[in-house]
């Protein structure tokens, strides 16, 4: 009776995983080996979709997959690095006794609670080329205006900066928590040897917040790989398609107009593989360090 009850209570979870995790995963793997377009019968094409995306088919490959993947890599590296640097720097400031710290902390974390779509639309206003506040400030400082939406390089920077603006508070909160967990007596002991704040940060703070930062790096990497909302709303992938991310391209391929679900599934599986590699490397490093 006890054994049966155990299975009974496990069943919902098992069904959930089978239906909503395993089945879509396996079905999408099957789709990735077909030329399926919604409304048309799928035909098995083996690994042809993967070969085209990875430019192994001798036919010129999928030019757009390569370019969007390139921008995604730029975003992943750029956004992760900048959010870590800014978030840690702000956390370090807030780890000191300053007036109005609590209020400022609440204000600083606000972007984190906005939907990325809303942040993207906010970016449309902020980076408006004719009347946006960023350009007005730059103009006021005598630096001239930047074509944030219509210049390929500046548009990429606008997407990157918007993502950094939204996610810096996330890094800030976690790193600040890690900093506050460091016992004061460690600093007090260290201050007997040095009064240099940089040395204290480098030899006390940084090693002790490293595990938390590792987690943050992993989460930021995975989060940035998935980015879609901000380029969709801020630049609509333009000018041309320079701010289309890889995920944007998957969305366009599979869910807009052409419904090429076979190709979109193959594109998605490649992201899954990359995400698995990144997280495996991370956990391997963590195990190597702490075991």
């Amino acid at each position, binding site marked *: 009776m006890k054994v049966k009850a155990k299975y009974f209570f496990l069943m919902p979870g098992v069904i959930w995983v089978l239906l909503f995790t395993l089945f879509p995963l396996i079905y999408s793997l099957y789709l990735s080996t077909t*030329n399926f*377009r*919604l*409304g048309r019968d799928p035909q098995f094409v083996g690994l042809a979709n993967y070969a085209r995306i990875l430019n192994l088919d001798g036919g010129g490959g999928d030019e757009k997959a390569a370019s969007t993947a390139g921008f995604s890599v730029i975003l992943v590296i750029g956004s992760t690095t900048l959010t870590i640097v800014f978030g840690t720097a702000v956390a370090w400031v807030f780890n000191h006794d300053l007036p109005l710290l609590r209020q400022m902390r609440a204000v600083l974390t606000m972007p984190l609670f906005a939907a990325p779509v809303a942040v993207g639309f906010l970016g449309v206003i902020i980076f*408006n*080329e*004719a009347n946006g506040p960023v350009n007005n400030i730059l103009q006021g400082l005598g630096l001239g205006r930047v*074509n944030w*939406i*219509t*210049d*390929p390089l500046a548009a990429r920077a606008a997407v990157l900066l918007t993502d950094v603006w939204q996610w810096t508070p996330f890094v800030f909160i976690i790193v600040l928590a890690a900093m506050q967990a460091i016992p004061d007596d460690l600093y007090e002991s260290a201050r007997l040897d040095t009064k240099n704040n940089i040395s204290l940060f480098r030899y006390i703070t940084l090693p002790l917040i490293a595990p938390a930062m590792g987690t943050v790096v992993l989460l930021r990497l995975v989060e940035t790989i998935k980015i879609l909302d901000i380029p969709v709303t801020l*630049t*609509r*992938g*333009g*000018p*041309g*398609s*320079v701010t289309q991310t890889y995920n944007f391209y998957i969305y*366009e391929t599979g*869910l*807009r*107009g*052409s*419904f*090429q679900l076979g190709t979109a599934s193959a594109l998605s599986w490649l992201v899954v593989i990359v995400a698995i590699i990144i997280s495996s490397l991370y956990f391997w490093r963590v195990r190597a360090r702490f075991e």
Partner: protein
Amino acid sequence: MNKQTITSSKRLLALVLMIALLLAVGAAQVTAQEQTFFGKTAQELFPIPGVAADEQEQRLAFEALLRANLPDGREFGEGKTLTFGVLGQGSRGGISGTIYFWRNAFEAATGARLEIVEIPYNELGTTIPADFLTGQYTYDVFIGAAWQYGDWISNGWIQPIDRFFGDPRFPAWDINDVAPAFAALMQWEGQTYGTTNDGDAQLFYYRYDVLNDPEWQAAFEAEMGYPLPNPPTTWQQLLAVTSFFNGKDWNRDGDPDDGISLHLAPGGQGHFHYATLAASFAVTPAEGDDPRAVTKFDNVFWFDPETMEPLINQPGHVRALEFLKELAATGQRAQLGWQLGEAWDNFLGGNAIATFSWGDVGSLSQDVNRSRIKGNLGASAILCSEEWYDRELGQFVTDSENPNCVGNTTGGSWHPTMSAFTDTPELAYYMMAMLANPSINFYNATTGWQGIDPSSAYQLYPPRGTASPEDYAAVGFDLGDMERYINAYGANVFDKPTYLTYLRIPGTLEYIQETLDIRLSEAMTDQLTPQEALDATARDWNRITDELGREEQLAIYQAAIGFNP
């Protein structure tokens, strides 16, 4: 009778007439106040706020509704629900706003409930096909763009409506009132699938006051060495005009102003600008009696009608794209990232000397909440080109005396179609016909905010139509603006020797929005040269055609453009 008696008689007559007039006005007001539509008052049908913006809008809408003389639809509508899918821009936005506006009236006349489902522009190609392909069949009626007909008809998603024509159970409208260029977009192989609502064609707009200012005319002549073309009739003349005015403070606001105002962001419908302009660079009319006849070389723009090989990278197209870049350079750089509304607002705000766009600009220019140019609007049929590519000759032709003129119906011409799977076809048709009723459709096209453009004879002045200046004066429009705008619209839709063929084959959205639109943006922002961008487009198009089946696509393309192999 002496002079005094005559004067007294005249006074008496004037007094009697005045009293009669006052009585008539009073009676009319009482009648209007007492009149109801299926038991509902104007306030109940068009409440302020909620539906109508103000009393004038409420009154004009109610009068239009009464004039429509709608029949009782409760026989087939009572207790039912009609689901209406529509391009979504909110309850006071373009296209969808119309459906919200007339919802109460429809419900009163039919006893049915109208459920409105808004579909964002960028999801049009996803939501409706996904609904049908997955067997949901959510919508009884939906308003999409005419370019989607290829997908809808080849998949059997919409049904013909000819069987309802002339049936007195439904609101009256006549497809013969619709301009032939627009009626053709609602038909496929001899059957009608849609009812008229919005007629999209791009025409040319300019600042009438500035181009007619003797000071500016003299300044132009002094700088350019020849008189100001007023208004420009060719693209080349337009470029000269916008180049001259760009950067000058011609509106006297203290800042430099623009020559042209365009919307060229990816996803911002900039590809319509390209198609409108490129038509006269790349399309040649047929020789002989019918200049609109489609042959292998004439009146084709998108694909070779014998092979389905893309024509988009032909020399005429490349020159047109180069020209579009030159023209865009006579306006703000920011317009490369503008959506439709931003380009309109720049022109309506009095900051650009010219634009070419849909009829919305004409009606929006009369809305003083949005426009600063009421009374100063100039309009003409879309421009011709002094230079074009003749594919049959394999060379460019240059002729400034007899330029190449190609009209267009670019745009969605957003109109309702009926789902093949609706279980309430009568109710669905009632709603479609109600929107197409001349009284209601005329009113809609005068509001501006509804995004409904003229499509029919009753909206045009004679000799092309039956409208009169009083019709437009009644809704508060400037008669000078209307004289220019309405006549330009008529000339644009009726008078061009030939027209750009409308692309409406399966995958149109993929060909245009997902490839051409992106490549155009890449060219406009100097990521690719025009030739490279259009070569890339041609490659993309060949891939799409092969994926969709070249033979099937070719057959549908030939049917869509009227080509007989």
